[in-house]
């Protein structure tokens, strides 16, 4: 029984995190994320303490050593005009403007040295900023395909934010 205590303690401590994971993502269902990432996904949802209406969702699909991930961050801004540029800055100066994905959408691609490739869309709907990030270690995936996935998911998220 002594041996069980650490396990139960661990379960107890982890349960809140897992319960969060069982929560629905308000911006996108897992099937849609799975469609974009190419298969079944695991999902975690985290609410912000500052605003329970905001939520970050993370969808992950693993296929052997290859990983595909969709991260959605949504945050309500106090003053969109002042705060949104800091979100947009995540795309750097060479971001491409995107039409019709909320207001002021920009897209960009980021590759890091450890083999992770990302496509980002940053936008807002009224006073809510959102950042869509599609990340993969799949070197075979074309950059255009990765960008299109990010755009498509951003359109889904924007639609639910309106």
């Amino acid at each position, binding site marked *: 029984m002594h*041996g*069980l205590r650490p*396990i*139960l303690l661990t*379960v107890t401590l*982890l*349960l809140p995190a*897992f*319960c969060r*994971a*069982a929560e*629905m993502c308000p911006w996108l*269902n*897992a*099937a*849609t994320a*799975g*469609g*974009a990432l190419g*298969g*079944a*996904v*695991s*999902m*975690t949802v985290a609410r912000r303490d500052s605003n329970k209406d905001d939520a970050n969702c993370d969808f992950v699909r693993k296929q052997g050593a290859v990983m595909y991930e969709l991260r959605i961050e949504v945050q309500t801004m106090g003053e*969109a*005009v002042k705060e949104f540029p800091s979100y947009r800055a995540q795309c750097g100066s060479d971001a491409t403007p995107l*039409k*019709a994905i*909320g*207001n002021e959408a920009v897209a960009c691609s980021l590759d890091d040295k450890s083999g992770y490739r990302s496509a980002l869309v940053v936008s807002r*709907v*009224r*006073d809510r900023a959102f950042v869509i990030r599609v990340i993969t270690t799949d070197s075979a995936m074309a950059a255009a395909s990765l960008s299109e996935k990010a755009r*498509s998911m951003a*359109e*889904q998220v*924007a*639609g*639910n934010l*309106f």
Partner: protein
Amino acid sequence: MKTVKHRKLVAMVVVAGCSCILLEPSRAQSDISGERKKYAEEIRENYNFHFGKDKISTPGNAAIEGNDFVQPGAFPTAEYCGACHQEAYSQWRQALHSNAFRTPFYRASVNILLRTKGIEFARHCDSCHNPIGVLSGALTQDSKVDRTKFDADGLTCTTCHSVQRLQETAGNGGFVLAVPAVMVDENGKRIPGEVPNDEILKHRDRHSKAVMQSFYRTPEFCAACHKANLPNPLNDYKFLRAFTAYDEWQNSKFSKRNPLTFYSGDFTTCQGCHMKRAPLILPDYGAKNGTLVSHRWLAGNTAVPFYYGFDEQLKKTIEFLQAGNYLNVDLFAIKKASDGKMIAPLGSVPFTLAANDVVEAMVVIQNKNIGHSLIPEVRDLYEAWAEFTVKDASGAEVYHSGFLKADGKLDERAHSFTNRLVNTDNGFVDNHKVWTIHSVAYDNTVQAGRSSLIRYEFRIPANAKGPLTVTARVNYRHLRQTYLNNVLGENHPAYPVIEIASRSRTLNLGENAVADPDPRDNPEWMRWNNLGIAYLDQFQYADAVQAFNEVVKLRPEYADAYTNIALTNIAWEKYGSARDSLERALALSPDDARALYYLALLERRAGNSDAEIADLEAVVKRYPQSRDARRDLGTSYYREHKYPQAIEQFEALLAIDSDDIAAHYNLAILYYRVGMKEKAAVQQALFATKKIDPTAPTNSLDFLRGHPEISEESVPWHVHTDLAEGSATHRDQPSVKGMTGGSYQ
């Protein structure tokens, strides 16, 4: 051993608590029917059947053969169709149909519905805006359906081109789809799913059989979605009509089904205006003689192409709005407050004006060639209004009504062709929350073929430099600024304001001679006729009769002029005068169905039942789809205890308009009397839910009391002015006796 068991238990708890490994999205399969069965079973396990077992689309009406869910992948994509139909695809991609769901102007409203009442209620809207979403079972809590397959395409090719039949013309998605097929086999059996293009090109006739139906060319096809109601399951209140562009068309001159229109015209369907043939730009196997029926469905929506940057669609939409002879703007008359005499029609009579004159201008807006109302459908969001300006020779503004304020909102006092929907809290129904509607405070739309009279009063300043330029125009914006702000936030770019029609006149300070008409002007008799129609709709019967009498003077051979006088007198309860006029109309045109219809009403009042029925039978024979004639003939038979004949008429009426409450009411009684008690009960229930709530106007009155800035718009007769009350020496009043408020010069 215990430890192993406990570990298993813990693992199970974690997995159960997590529930985050989800089903793989369904794929389109060649064996679609087997796949569909499996798919539907999976969907049914968790589907929210809030509205009843097997009701997959309630409170909407979208239906599919087999009445079960269908996998989204069963619908071939638009890109697939676009391989052979490049022109149609490129047009569709920019059109409203393809963007019916994803547009923020739709999502903002429907998102409120699903957040406040639940996603299952959104099936009402999405039956038309996203039918694949509804029929695939995506509109339920914790949906496992991959939405990328259909959200972005709204009404894709294979939704419309899979419709097999239509339900009654109740709208809200009143169609029945089959599982999509782009080919039939040699026996005419549909082959579901995508087929290689080569195969289609080898058997184009079999492709046509799969994707085309003759009824696609009818207005009833459009009615499946361009007619909407708010059923009890949606609003938990009662059935309310929402919009009904189809019925408006059916009542217009373009349908040739209504004998009671003021003017006649050539038969034109919805498709005749909104799907005109145009030369090809891109290759398309559907083309005939190098042309293709437009899949842009040009109409009034400038907001969606503006938002998406579809410049070609926006340009063509603006051209469409400004192209046809849809509206006529007539600066018809002025009255000087000093004597109250009507100077009319402007251009045809000389007059004088001077500084300090207080002038009332009478502007007649005719809905001349639109096959539905100005403005149709979602008129709580669309914005059409009259703008009226008076400027002097130096450009100084003397008067301006209908301007946009600095914040982009329309001045509240503008004459707007809108309605004001009132909710359960006696407030304005904002954000298109149609499920909260309880009443309509007013509705200033102009029905097809009718006219609206708008009055403006201004004082010519003492220092005004003549001549004055007076301009009236009808502007249109998609959408109302407050809604644009709600959807996009207040710092959005200005959305287009389109001038649909306008007319200017120059008024000299001093003598004004007779002037040549503008080529766009209506002939003089029609100008008077439109004034009469406008007066009639404002319940100013004496003025209407006077105006129609001017038509008689100009066109004594025009039978409708007499009928117009008669129908005005009937509304005014001057039945003797009405009969005289109808007899003159029928003397000129003995079989005139319009005159016969109104004569029948007089015969009924006089107790001449045989003549009443004979007249109405003659009208129905010539206009079998006249709802008015059917309704009245049914009533006539009923009064004569001819129940089977009466039932036949009311059943025919319901086939024309499934929401006609007179038909429901009378059929409830008639069925009961002939012993058909079950059918009677059905009609009784339909009448009970569709009849007007007698308490609803109270909501409207409370709303208007709280909004004095717009309450005057609810009064049919009103004047727009910036002058202080009482500053005009002779403000005209509506006639209450036999003569007009002014006099005709």
